[in-house]
């Protein structure tokens, strides 16, 4: 029974007709209120995240235009497309990382369990606890391996067995055997592939529902890349994964659903086509998609 981060979850609500659990709003100045549940799962059939007419602006420049799609739960969805098509911008919008850049704003809605993540009373910090992120260049904290993984749970006020949680997270990130004897060593002393798996362990230690990955293997060697892809396949059963990748073959190998984006003439990214990965790659409907996946451009 995986350790939950708070008091036990309220009994499982029956399928869609009951109101979805709400994101607890953190009131300014108080210690964070206990979570309403350890790890929220989407009701069967409900998408993990639902984007509706999303446009992201940097100042007056529109980076992505009118994006609409659903992200199915417990599956891997890849965002592919040439450089400049707004994939990373869109990914970062899902967990409100764009908020860190002054001058950005979002139009449209991103619905999570029926609640708009950009609603006026939604706390971005709480959003990021439920939707975690792994970055392109591995960025472990300059702390020990143990403290890297324990960081998130500690600031959430985790009261249970931290050792157990750290071990479980490192196991789920397929790196436990390699580091179990050196948990006190610096996270930066690991190799690139190991650092990235450590970052994945760090992200899953806070028990998110969704993990966003921004080109997680692009800075790694082929063997580490394969390890990451295998890891993603294992993680799929517990988490929903959205991955941005430049590597088409990786998207074809590793993901269940694909969204193909392109940069329009107004330099804003838009969706060309989306669907099951197998359809996008073997039987695309749009000529542009066909051109991209067969390598004629991008």
């Amino acid at each position: 029974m995986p350790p939950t981060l708070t008091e036990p979850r309220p009994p499982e609500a029956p399928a869609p007709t009951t109101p979805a659990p709400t994101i607890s709003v953190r009131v300014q100045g108080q210690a964070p209120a206990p979570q309403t549940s350890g790890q929220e799962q989407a009701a069967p059939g409900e998408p993990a995240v639902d984007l509706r007419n999303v446009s992201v602006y940097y100042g007056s420049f529109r980076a992505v235009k009118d994006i609409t799609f659903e992200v199915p739960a417990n599956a891997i969805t890849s965002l592919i497309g040439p450089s400049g098509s707004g994939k990373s911008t869109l990914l970062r919008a899902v967990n409100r990382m764009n908020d860190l850049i002054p001058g950005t704003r979002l139009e449209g809605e991103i619905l999570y369990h029926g609640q708009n993540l950009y609603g006026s009373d939604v706390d971005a910090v709480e959003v990021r606890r439920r939707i975690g992120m792994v970055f392109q260049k591995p960025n472990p904290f300059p702390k020990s391996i143990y403290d890297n993984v324990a960081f998130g749970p500690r600031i959430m006020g985790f009261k249970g067995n931290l050792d157990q949680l750290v071990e479980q997270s490192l196991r789920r990130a397929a790196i436990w055997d390699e580091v179990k004897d050196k948990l006190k060593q610096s996270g930066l002393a690991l190799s690139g592939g190991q650092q990235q798996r450590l970052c994945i362990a760090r992200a899953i230690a806070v028990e998110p529902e969704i993990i966003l990955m921004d080109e997680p293997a692009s800075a790694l060697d082929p063997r580490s890349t394969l390890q990451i892809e295998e890891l993603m396949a294992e993680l799929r059963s517990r988490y929903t994964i959205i991955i941005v990748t430049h590597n088409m073959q990786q998207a074809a190998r590793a993901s269940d659903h694909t969204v193909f984006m392109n940069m329009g003439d107004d330099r804003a990214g838009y969706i060309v086509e989306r669907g099951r990965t197998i359809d996008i790659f073997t039987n695309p409907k749009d000529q542009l998609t066909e051109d991209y996946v067969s390598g004629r451009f991008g």
Partner: protein
Amino acid sequence: MAVVAQSLPRTTLTRSGIQWRSMIFEGILLLSLILSLAILFTLIADVVQRGLPVLQERGTQFLTAPASSRASRAGISQGLFGTLVMAITVALVAFPIGILTAVYLEEYAPDNRLTRFINVNIRNLAGVPSVVYGLLGLSIFVLTLKGVTGGTTMIAGGITLAVLVLPIVIITSAEAVRAVPRALREAGYGVGASRWEVTRLLVLPYAAPGILTGTVLSLSRALGETAPLILVGAVLGGFSTGNKTALEQIFGSFTAMPVMVYDWARKPQADFRELTAAAIIVLLVVTLLANAIAILLRNRFERTW
């Protein structure tokens, strides 16, 4: 009509002849280095040659004796005490205020006209001559706040020095915070940390070595200031501490090491020349000690993570 470009001058693969220009340039650089070192060396050699005999002769008595009009009995204990107490005051007043201000300006303040205006003016304040801070200290800390500081005391002197180095502390701390890589902050936000948690648990520990270096260097700057202390009432010409307790001394007349150096340098008696040099040696040792502590602390915090 085709444009014919001038052809580049032909050169050979192997070097032919001596590269005069490069050699002359390197020579000028080396000469500048030697000149700077020579000036420093001459100054220090002069002081050491004059003052070392005094220290060798009188040893620790020089450090423990109070001022006197007789060169053979005069010591710098009052100056040492004043400098020490003021160093502590500067640390307690300037460091917390300066570091927290820097954190606010770098992490929390929005990037607008007001913030930029404040930053520019802090830099201006760092360039204001220290004498002006002396006048400020006199009018506010000595006169207006006489009830708190006790007038012309080392408390007033210490607070004046703290205000003097505050802009430097802010600037160096702000630079240390700015140097923290963005990836570290993003990683913190990515696991759901709030801005305060990212600042306290990730940014400050990472910036700590830089902040530490900046604060201790500003301290050694403060310890060498003379003019502001004279304006705030440091006693020239010696005074008696008699049997006063430490607390009474803190709230009574005071002096500091650089002030004593200035005082003794003005005396006509020949013996005081050597005494001045000896006092300078002690002052230099204290300054070097402060810098050495800065380096030690910085190395200790800069673990190779």
